[in-house]
């Protein structure tokens, strides 16, 4: 139990040299060993998606991955979205569309949508709903989250055709 591995996690381009037990989950390592508390824990069994981060560009439930598995991979979390204090397009869309209330599930949704739109910028509205249904929000009733995601997807499509 006390055996610890020395690993380096790369989060938002910054390297964190940490020592973790093999059983340490990625989300615990991100939050406690690397001090990046923007990623939240909602269920620890892979259902709610609050802990979603991007690992090499793919949305991952960081409660279902061990920290040691993420070594050498590019991890992105909510802290990496804004430029300084300036919200990015997706964050701004959440604010404009009232896509958050308590804000606890928000980092997970932001990373899920970021990952999906980067990989599938032409995703249909219907497919987007399928993707968004992988995370839980208890406050908003989802409508405004869907609106925010669609707005950004539309904007990205426009930019590419312009």
């Amino acid at each position, binding site marked *: 139990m006390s055996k610890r591995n020395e690993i380096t996690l790369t989060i938002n381009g910054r390297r964190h040299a940490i020592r973790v037990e093999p059983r340490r989950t990625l989300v615990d390592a991100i939050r406690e060993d690397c001090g990046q508390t923007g990623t939240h824990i909602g269920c620890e*069994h892979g259902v709610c998606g609050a802990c979603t981060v991007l690992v090499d560009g793919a949305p991952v439930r960081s409660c279902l991955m061990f920290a040691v598995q993420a070594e050498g991979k590019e991890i992105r*979390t909510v802290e990496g979205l*804004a430029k300084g204090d300036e919200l990015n397009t997706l964050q701004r869309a959440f604010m404009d569309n009232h896509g958050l209330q*308590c804000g*606890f599930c928000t980092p997970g949704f932001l990373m899920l949508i970021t990952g999906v739109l980067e990989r599938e910028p032409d995703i249909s509205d219907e497919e987007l709903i399928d993707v968004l249904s992988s995370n839980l929000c208890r406050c908003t009733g989802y*409508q405004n989250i869907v609106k925010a995601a669609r707005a950004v997807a539309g904007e990205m499509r426009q930019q590419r055709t312009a």
Partner: protein
Amino acid sequence: MTAPTKGSGLTWVGRSIRRVEDPALLMGRGRFTADLPAAHRVRFVRSHVAAGRIENIDVPDGATVFTATDLAAVKPIVPALHKFGYVHVAQPVLAAENVRFVGEAIAAAVAATEAEAEDIADGVTVMISEMPAIIDGRAAMQDGAPLVHAQAAGNICVEGKVQTPGFAEAHAGAHRRIAVELRSRRQNATPLEARAGHATYDPISERVTLTCATQMPHLMRTAIADLLGMPESDLRVIAPDVGGGFGQKMSLVPEYVVLVWLARKLRSSVAWTEDRRENLMASFHSRDQHIRLEGAFDADAKLVALSAEVVANVGAYSCYPTTCAVEPLMAMAELPGPYDLRAYACLARGVLTNTCPMAPYRGVSRPVITLALERLMDAAAAQLGLDPVDIRRRNLIEKFPYTSATGLVFDEGTYRQTLEMASNALDVPAFRKRQAQARSERRYLGIGFAAFSERTGYGTPAFAARGMGVTPGWETVELTMDPSGYVELRIGASPHGQGLRTTLAQLVAEELGIAPERIKVVHGDTDRTPYGWGTFASRSLVIAGGASVMASRKVQAKLKTIASRLLEAASDDIVLENGAARVAGTDRALPIETLARAAYHQSHLFKGELDAGLSESATYDPAGTFSNACHAAIVEVDAETGGVTIERFVVAEDAGRLVNPMIADGQVMGGAAQGIGNALLEEIVYDDTGNMLTATLADFLPPTCREIPRIELFHLETLSDATLTHSKGLGEGGAIGAPAAVLNAINDALTPFGISINEIPATPQRIRAALRQAEKSPA
């Protein structure tokens, strides 16, 4: 779709400005309890049986584990209520001799990390002599049922009875009597952030700071200080960012008491973060009710008498501060709903069982009583050959103020109008044609309505009627404009997602003529805010908002006096707008900050007329107001699978003046989504021995965006004088109406089969079971 605010002519109120809360939350800079570092982590050892006597607790060598023996000086939680035969049951913060539900905390394991604390907790062996457990509320009242608490005979913890004069005559003389029986299964509010607490001891001041996910920081401080026998001033409670509450975080959490005790014992910092399994089985449950209604109708389908029997399964203990009476007594007081009714009789009981304790959850009882009453209306419509809209039209109240059979006073509302709006939006005649066509293709569509009232923004007069030992109600705010002209508003309310920092800033901005950006709302810290009750019961915008306006007006008067001197004009001629005080109709003006500076630094100019500075406080304690709404749903039921799809969902509602329509819409949509989840998916299930079968979010199912349709919203804004701001609360309504609208729609869809579903959640299993037993196959 929001109607413009009528007759306000105001600048900041009524505008959908963006929330000041958002940027930090969007950038991952929110501060939630679990984000705090601590020297010690706590893991609770919990009961694995529903009822039994603790024989022995075996702790691994060298492990730090505390049990009830260590906490012998800590008082048990004994919420008080002085009416309705309430039995004062006690809950030790760690189980002492007996355990009464699966998940009850027995011991606290402490270690440097969470993983180590979990290892230690796993190594603790608790020997429990199992005793017979009782799980079902109605079974618990039967002779010979095991008693959860020896002093509560028949396991009845509270019993409310009411019968209006003339009930028997009205009931007996009616044209038709129609009965319905409804079952709401047990649910968990399921905030995405489970509970979490962090307590740290300061050796210099000898104070403890408890940071926790709570909706009621001040009351937590009072309750915990009482139980630990410490002065309240030695405890500071902070509610930082809180990840949703929905009522689950308004009750006293025994684990938080243990954390404060541990911080003092260890003279250090300790933290506990509840995991989802603990939250589902050991936080608080709700909505576990069985309701029998009999409605007596006259020949015009007017409801002339209503009798009700309510059994609320309240679990093993009573929650503080509301007590477990909150569900049965609210059912009793509000069951007649929005309908004109003079003859009413009700027997409402809160029954103890070996299950997780019940506590308020968004809507508190009203989702269930609305379900029952609205099923009754549809059953009556069917039997009397009326349309569901028509029978409601004949019965809704329409003259105000209206005093109900239980003595509640309804202020002005739009009960009839919202019904018509909802039914027009769904175009009922066109739907009926489509429904008939679909049936011929063996597709089953249904439409359902739910009209209801939502009692909101009530202060001590309303709470006092319940006879609680703790009577909540008022809110106090302290408002300071500093010499720079910026404002700090300190409030006792404790928002956790409602956007109250934004809406209160809008209200204050309106009064002081400055931009909301200049107003910082401070909440959730007992060291920084005046005593207050917190955020629950759709109250904060109304009550803290009213107090904010009162305090603002005091400061506004001072600013006008100062401006009148400096501008040499009559005080009545001064207007505050756009950050300046202006003499009306002229270009003579001074910036607000000049006045603010003068209030502090030139106070000699106003000596004898004004106190120095610009700090004012105000307390608001209104009697309460009723919002109203009508929810309407169109669903399709798949007769093969029992699955239900919601095709459309309409909400027509009236919560008075909307301070920020965007935020108001968000509250309604989020509430409706919870109500839809309650109606179709969410169920806490115990087996016969009291073991919980739904301990993950793969078993207990909050809805995803797949199950939630677009909510079509319509607002009316009745400017009732029942509140200072003409705003009514709307936090709970979404959750109140949706279950009834959905269940009525399902039953309408199933009409061809001659069956009815009177239980929520209406899962595919339940619908298929009913279809299998259907006597007739559809024509």
